[in-house]
């Protein structure tokens, strides 16, 4: 009897309705917004680079796969709006573990992660993405490397993880995203918050920042 039940289970699966796999390269599943893929370096609406060469990302990277060198902006045609810009910016994807600490660390939202992960390097040099390759193109989209496989729309929502972590765990800041203008996207209104619908939507009063401002001083623990 038990045997027959088992045969029934396998027989029941026959029929095309409940396939759980997809013929992969031709057909892809939708990727969740927060997926950690490869990075892009963003630019402001006016085309200026967001990276200021502060090396926070390189410092926090547990795999030590980011190499950044900052340099003073040339006076005549500055690369970034600040004083300095990322002169060299490289990520070695043979080392990157996609923990996204760099995204959380970046103070200017310069580095974010796309949902692209389908690399097929032919050599180790290709795995080292230089700044030219990481930087978004003139439309604000990630550049397509010859060894990457992705469809047209997979490079959108590059900032989901940055937005998800942007409130620093504070419910009041759930909806407040410091979303600086971005090439191809512009100054986006805060997108749908990352909080649960069950939670009351935090209305961010103008004085909310003041109310919590004192916290930022942070009492030393001991």
């Amino acid at each position, binding site marked *: 009897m038990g045997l027959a039940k*088992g*045969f029934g289970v396998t*027989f029941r699966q*026959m029929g095309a309705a409940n*396939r759980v*796999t997809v*013929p992969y390269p031709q057909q892809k599943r939708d990727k969740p917004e927060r997926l950690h893929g490869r990075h892009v370096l963003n630019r402001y609406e006016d085309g200026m680079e967001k990276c200021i060469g502060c090396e926070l990302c390189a410092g926090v990277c547990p795999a030590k796969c980011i190499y950044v060198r900052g340099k003073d902006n040339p006076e005549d045609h500055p690369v970034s709006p600040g004083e300095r810009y990322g002169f060299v910016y490289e990520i070695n994807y043979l080392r990157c573990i996609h923990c996204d600490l760099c995204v959380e660390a970046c103070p200017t939202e310069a580095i974010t992660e796309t949902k692209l992960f389908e690399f097929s390097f032919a050599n180790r040099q290709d795995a080292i993405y230089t700044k030219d390759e990481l930087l978004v193109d003139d439309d604000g989209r990630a550049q397509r490397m010859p060894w990457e496989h992705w469809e047209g729309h997979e490079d959108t929502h590059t900032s989901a993880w940055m937005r998800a972590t942007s409130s620093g765990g504070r419910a009041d800041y759930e909806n407040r995203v410091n979303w600086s203008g971005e090439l191809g996207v512009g100054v986006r209104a805060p997108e749908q918050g990352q909080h649960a619908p069950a939670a009351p939507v935090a209305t961010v009063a103008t004085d909310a920042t003041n109310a919590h401002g004192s916290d930022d001083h942070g009492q030393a623990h001991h």
Partner: protein
Amino acid sequence: MRFLFSAGDPLFDEAFDFMSMMTVVVLLKVVVAFVVLLVSVMLYIWGMRKWIADMQNRVGPANAGPAGVLQTLADGIKLFFKEQSIPDSADRPIFRLAPYLSILPAFLMFCVVPIGGEVEILGRKTYLQVAELPIGAMFILACSGIAVYGVMLAGWSSGSKYPLLGAVRASAQVLSYEAAFGLGMLAVLMRAGTLSTREIVNQQQWVGMESLVRDWFLLPAFLGFAIFILAAIAETNHPPFDFVEAEQELVGGFVTEYTGIRFAIFFLAEFMNIITMSAVATTLFLGGPSGPAIWPDRFGAGGWVNGTVVPVLWFVAKVLLLTFCTVWIRASLPRLRYDQLMALGWKWLIELAVLFVLYVIVDEVAQAEGWNRAIAIPLALVGGIAAYGVLYLCMPKRGETVEEFR
């Protein structure tokens, strides 16, 4: 003198002449059978993967050819061009020989299977069957026994331990199940009173629905069928009895050290065996090519369509049904343990088969002699079971100490 094989074929009604169309017909049949078998293996592997994928909510092969039907061919081509490696500790001549030893019996066994009725090829009448032997059933038995050499020698000649374990398992498994296999067939042979496969098929001719119950040996030898199928699955090393390769236990068993086309040949042989065994089971129990004529008003009952084509279609349909069942079993059952397999073979299948053969004998003799079957058969079974009871009582029980031979 007579030609060695194919004694019963109408092709040889005239005296055999080497320099005639007879030779061409024989060669043609051999080549066509081989090609058909190869193609059907290719399709079977594809179908198996599709079916099993469907049962597991997967897509299965999809890229090579329409719906992936050429996947097997693509795999074969890939394996053909792969490097052939031979381990240092291997016994080289035997290592090279083993794959071919395993594929030969699978094909030979197929030779005696009647696929259809009588046809005319090149002006010669002949059976749709490579060779019609007066002892076809024994020939099947012989081939299934010889099939173990490929596996066994492959495992031994690889010169490493997992393949050796696989080889030892293979030899014990085939030796054990050969008996059950033969006894399962015996019920049919008793009922049919002949060893010729053609004769067996002829006795299962379709004469209406009643022949499904009365003439096909499925029901008159039902236990034989069950035992035959189980033993055939064990002999072809098909899951859940695939101990010989048992990936989770023996890595790959006897094929662990094989690569490239030699590896492919082993699997070709294995799947060819499954098809051949399905064909043999069809022949023995399911009436081979027999089945109702299709649209006799239009095509006529014995015309070209219903005389030649439809029997082949019936045969193919029955083989397909059986192969589907093998796939279904593959998808549904976990693997037994090796000692459980041996216990199943020795403690259950052989005993049951002997009892069933006893029953068939008494039944047949009672029919022939006009005894009262209602008395004779129970008496015989009681006698048989009593004999087993005595044997069982003689066996040492668990916990009983037995003086050991030293």
